[in-house]
């Protein structure tokens, strides 16, 4: 369990570096380090499915972030009202820490989950679906509605991105547009 704590400390340090560093590229690299640490943490907790997905999505996000932010300085605004802002921040931190402390006491102990529904899946997953990978049998058979919703979310996200960043608006009937503009 000690390696998990080392990884968590590494990820927290990486997140703080990502916030505090001035250079945008260094910040993106620090975010990537946090994601890598998270995927190793999933591996230590014996969840290889999630680890693979986390790793590849992290790489993709890193490529997009680097390509999109390279050689581009975003303006950083530190306007007045710092007293008001830090007061609100401290207030919300206190509320969230209090809520988290209350909620964490109700949770089951780490590594000993409540196995009401999950034990049924573990015992009957192989015979009911025939899939050797139980994660796959859960996301595509027992809980396939979730996957359908997730696919819809991704579809909507792609349509939204393509709509927001396109350069030309709606075409008039019969209007021709250069191919490179699309």
């Amino acid at each position: 369990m000690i390696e998990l704590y080392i990884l968590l400390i590494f990820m927290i340090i990486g997140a703080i570096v990502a916030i505090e560093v001035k250079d945008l590229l260094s910040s993106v690299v620090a975010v990537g380090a946090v994601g890598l640490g998270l995927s190793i943490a999933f591996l230590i907790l014996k969840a290889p499915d999630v680890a693979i997905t986390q790793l590849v999505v992290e790489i993709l996000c890193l490529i997009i972030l680097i390509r999109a932010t390279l050689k581009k300085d975003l303006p950083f605004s530190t306007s007045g009202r710092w007293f008001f802002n830090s007061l609100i921040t401290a207030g919300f931190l206190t509320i969230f820490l209090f809520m988290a402390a209350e909620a964490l006491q109700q949770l089951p102990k780490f590594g000993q989950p409540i196995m009401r529904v999950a034990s049924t899946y573990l015992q009957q997953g192989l015979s009911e679906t025939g899939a050797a990978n139980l994660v796959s049998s859960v996301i595509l058979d027992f809980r396939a509605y979730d996957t359908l919703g997730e696919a819809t979310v991704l579809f909507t996200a792609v349509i939204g991105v393509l709509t927001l960043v396109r350069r030309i608006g709606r075409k008039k009937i019969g209007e021709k547009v250069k191919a490179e503009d699309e």
Partner: protein
Amino acid sequence: MSKEHQAGMSLIVKTITRLTVGLILLYGIYILLHGHISPGGGFAGGVIVALSFIHLMLAYGKEMAFKKLSKGAASFLESGGAIMFLLIALSGFSGGYFFLNFINKGEPFRLFSAGIIPLCNIAISFKVGAGLFAIFVALVLLKTNSKEKER
């Protein structure tokens, strides 16, 4: 940056890319086809397939990548994957209810087993791969294009 982006990277990167891009594509296909046996699945496999095309685009420029997978093909694959997933779910009504695993389960630990789960994996990987490729193209290329226009 935009000009170098159009033409791709240096000769070393291009040579390495020629060797590795096929392996990455094959690994993605392996991950998605074996999603019901080993860790992985449609989402991770689709992202790896998309990464191989992104790799090609970063190294060789956008012309080469669009020759392999055009924008029309990407949008067709994305919508086609979504519709295929929905059709698999709907065809469960032939035996009873939505998302019924109506194909013969087969023997566990074989490639052709587990009924509709491999088909769903393939549909999701089409959707995720083409969709993420489209997001990459939209976020990266269109931005550089608009920067060129400002000059």
